[in-house]
């Protein structure tokens, strides 16, 4: 085999190794789409709807990755802040786009507080950010349940009985957001060949992407990248590492709160006790499907991830029903694939780290050998 062929083989192998997850999903979608029998316009409609619904939430994960804090499972905290804001806005009867804007503003103090708490804790658990943020989300979920189930209506004033549980305090399982349902998606929406394009929502997402690109070039963005690359070097360079890390988590939490509000205005109702519970997991899975890793993620990964992951989400139940006669198989499939892809990404990240360490070790050994030969 010639050197050129060997090089090409090596490049192809590296490409396959670096893009295992997206390629696997492209394969799954390629198999499931024809089996499901969905029309292209239906699929496109669904994918664009889900892109508008989820992209903002997933974008909120980019900044902590930039700061070297891995996948922020604590984005669930932002989702809870967004939900609290929506409960208040529903009770105040603020409808339509003003309702969405007000909910975003109201969510900010909750998100900042929760993000600050999360950041402080993560600073105490450096190197174990992902598992810590995952557990923090369960802990804060308990506080959220306490507030929503017992304090709202008894201590925190809630006027409308349509929101309160029949016993007089606590919030109902479902809060209707009918008066703000798809208000952003429908404004400036256009239909092309039967496919609804939520122009305003996509513009908001595009603006967010531009903001992230701009943020990377700011002093704070550069600091975050420096912290993400090497904490010790960043500290030696005079960067306040702890503060930078806390700010990155606060920004992520605030953006997750906004994303959750956008997500719920699209759905049109709020499952008070469960809407946030799986959001972090699905967003992280989507980002990883797009080819991101624990230490690197780009805007491109977000969009590729949403498209591939949600195509699988749409077609899997139907494909499962066609293959096995039971649509529940498809339901289970998409949930287990979500967990599976996170596991795979974590394993691959560890393998990559070990490989890099081994390479450095080999190079050091080689250099030592050469030195000994010279002597």
């Amino acid at each position: 085999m010639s050197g050129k062929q060997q090089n090409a083989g090596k490049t192809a192998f590296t490409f396959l190794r670096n893009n295992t997850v997206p390629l696997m999903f492209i394969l799954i979608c390629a198999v499931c789409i024809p089996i499901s029998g969905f029309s292209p316009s239906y699929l496109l409609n669904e994918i664009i709807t889900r892109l508008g619904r989820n992209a903002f939430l997933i974008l909120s994960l980019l900044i902590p990755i930039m700061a070297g804090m891995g996948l922020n499972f604590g984005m669930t905290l932002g989702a809870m802040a967004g939900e609290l804001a929506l409960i208040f806005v529903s009770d105040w009867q603020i409808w339509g786009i003003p309702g969405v804007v007000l909910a975003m503003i109201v969510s900010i103090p909750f998100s900042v507080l929760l993000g600050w708490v999360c950041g402080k804790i993560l600073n105490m658990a450096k190197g174990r950010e992902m598992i810590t943020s995952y557990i923090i989300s369960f802990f804060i979920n308990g506080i959220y349940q306490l507030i929503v189930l017992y304090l709202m209506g008894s201590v925190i004033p809630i006027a409308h009985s349509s929101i309160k549980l029949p016993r007089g305090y606590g919030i109902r399982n479902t809060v209707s957001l009918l008066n703000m349902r798809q208000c952003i998606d429908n404004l400036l929406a256009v239909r092309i060949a039967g496919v609804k394009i939520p122009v305003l929502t996509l513009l908001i997402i595009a603006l967010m992407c531009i903001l992230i690109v701009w943020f990377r070039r700011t002093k704070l963005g550069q600091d975050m990248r420096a912290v993400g690359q090497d904490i010790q070097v960043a500290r030696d360079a005079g960067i306040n590492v702890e503060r930078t890390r806390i700010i990155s988590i606060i920004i992520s939490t605030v953006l997750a709160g906004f994303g959750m509000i956008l997500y719920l205005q699209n759905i049109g109702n709020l499952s008070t006790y469960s809407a946030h519970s799986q959001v972090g997991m699905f967003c992280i899975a989507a980002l990883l499907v797009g080819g991101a890793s624990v230490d690197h993620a780009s805007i491109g990964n977000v969009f590729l991830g949403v498209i591939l992951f949600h195509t699988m989400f749409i077609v899997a139940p139907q494909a499962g029903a066609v293959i096995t006669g039971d649509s529940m198989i498809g339901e289970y499939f998409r949930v287990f694939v979500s967990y599976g892809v996170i596991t795979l990404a974590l394993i691959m990240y560890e393998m990559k780290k070990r490989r890099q360490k081994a390479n450095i070790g080999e190079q050091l050994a080689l250099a030592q050998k050469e030195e000994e030969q010279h002597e």
Partner: protein
Amino acid sequence: MNNKRKWIFRGCTLLVVLLIAALMFVVGRGHTVYIDNKTLEYNGETYNALQKVEVWVNGERLSKLSKRDRTMTTTIGNGFEMKLINTVNKGDEPTEVTVNLSLPYGWDGILVNIPGYLANLPQEAWMSEFIIEAAPPEEGEEEPGEDEIPTAEF
């Protein structure tokens, strides 16, 4: 100096955000307006329901009300405009009236009586708060479900 400017900038940003929130509070207040074509008794006088009323809101016909009928619409903000095409008695020529109402901020549901409004009565005669009783509890609603996983809606 630099620090002072930073704090002024932060204060201004906070003020702008609060102003936007206050504006959203005012312009986004939602109301449900119930429009009645029912006979009204006020100060011992009787104001009869109209034979027919067409209610138009935002350029679309909302409803055609006969005697004792009611329709409803939702609106955002405290201003509400509707067009009424009235037929007072059978065989009469319909007349057109544009109604501009200022809705009280604190009322969620607002009941407007058309015969009272057309008779130029004071506002308290034809506008009142409409309070809906909460829906009865559904079975199993006391406690939230434990296995609510939002996979389907995601």
